[in-house]
């Protein structure tokens, strides 16, 4: 199937990506070619495996192992906050959830 510019724009929005008009056109043509290629999977889908049998690679490992909860190291928190673009005391600073005209952080 082919993906149109509108569709690419809609999916990009879902993925929280803004792409330029030029990118929309390029992506639409490249992604259509890729999706066309992927559509060959229809011919291979014999439905022999159940949906439960889908986690192919990870099934080769042991089943997931729960680990005991442990308190976070305080030093790790400092390093975590050092990586934050903006923080105040022990909190991350981000813009308001709701847009306010001209308001920032």
């Amino acid at each position: 199937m082919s993906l149109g510019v509108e569709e690419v724009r809609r999916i990009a929005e879902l993925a929280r990506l803004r792409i330029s008009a030029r990118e929309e056109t390029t992506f639409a043509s490249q992604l259509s070619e890729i999706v066309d290629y992927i559509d060959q999977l229809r011919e291979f889908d014999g439905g022999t495996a159940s949906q439960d049998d889908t986690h192919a690679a990870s099934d080769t490992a042991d089943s997931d192992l729960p680990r005991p909860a442990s308190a976070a190291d305080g030093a790790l928190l400092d390093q975590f906050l050092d990586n934050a673009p903006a923080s105040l005391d022990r909190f991350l600073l981000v813009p308001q959830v709701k847009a306010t005209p001209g308001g920032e952080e």
Partner: protein
Amino acid sequence: MQAMTAEGLAAAIRSGERNAVDAVEAAFARIDEVDASVGAFLELWRDEAAERAADIDRRRDEGLPLGPLAGVPTALKDNMSLAGHELNCGSRILAGYRAPYTAGAVERLVAAGAVPVGRVNMDEFAMGSSCENSALATTRNPWNPAMAPGGSSGGSAAAVAAAEAPLALGSDTGGSIRQPAAFCGVVGVKPTYGRVSRYGLVAFASSLDQIGPLARNVRDAALALGAIAGPDPRDSTCSEEPACDFLERIEDGIEGVKIGTIREVGTSALESDAARGFEQALQTLARCGAELVEVSVPLVEAAVATYYVLANSEASANLARFDGSRYGHRAAGARSLAEMYTGSRSEGFGPEVKRRIILGTFALSSGYYDAYYGRAARIAGALRQQFSEAFDKAELLVTPTSPSGAFKLGERVDDPLAMYLSDVFTTPTSLAGIPGISVPCGLDSRGLPLGLQILARPFADGTALRAARAFERETGFECRPEAVS
């Protein structure tokens, strides 16, 4: 010292014949000499490496035991954490990010005595087959600077091939260790899924990602895998199976071992040189005493399409964490949280990452989920079953690593599908979770290396290494790229 193997170098350092300090100094001298033309390294850790090396020499002089990789300079792919050091994953979105802790595999490597000398280039978020999707640097193939080193662990492969370090760690999701190893004429191991901890590795597609070694010969790769493999409670997918000594039986050869070729892996996908190289590789295996048989794994033909649905679906979820709030790039002037997310991601991610996130989001979106993600997941399950049946008929399977030797830089950047199709022989292994090793099998008519891929059952990594070693012994291939001689 460049000519020395990791194994030989560590032995010489342990015995006091050589010093770790000199080994590390020699590695940096070599990097200073050739990396301007190779472009493998993004950052060098000179002071810390010198300190670690001095500590190893001191421990030896005090009579304390040293690990199997004592003093071996090692390059780390830019997606694995070393505490206190920057980690960019080849992306602008992680500019300035410093790892707060060390990855499980890196911890083990260092505990075995290896000395990390720096981080090396990769395709952004490990998405690519040529290293050209890196937002940070261009890496060239040491055999010919006009050629791509392969990807996504292109920096790891190029650094080892150019003898800048005897050892590197890479990560492999759909071929990202094996294909660059083949392109650069080195050995690359993608271990069994769950064999090596991914704690501290930036996630791309969590059901497929594995860390593994790249080295100039099979014994060094086996030594490194033995050092990094084993349980880690911090990665819930990491197997509890204890690590083993992969060198123990590595010289035992493959006399009488059944090795299968896969009927559906047609030579039509191969360039003529690569087809010839694979044919010769089969003859070499026969000379080693292997019994060649043919097996059937029909779904290998669906692997690339299946892989690009599953890997990108997982990537679209994994990469949702990069939104400008906790680390990395944040867009300026956002008036709302949503604007900050969208702005940061749009400015921070390069085109291939955006393309793949969009593809993955599409495959997971309402109305398309069953037709794409659901179908691909079913096929992957069936493929795994087919591999399991094939391993009842042959202990090991072999394929070419890649349809051709290295391609030119720039040749495929505008054609993502052509780039994806270069993973035709490596993605089936990833989907099945089985180990795959690329071992050099000679040069093509352009003088560029070709790789043979050896596959084994889950957790039979040692068997694949043994076959790779027998093959290597028989071919006598040496990684000596003239361009950086």
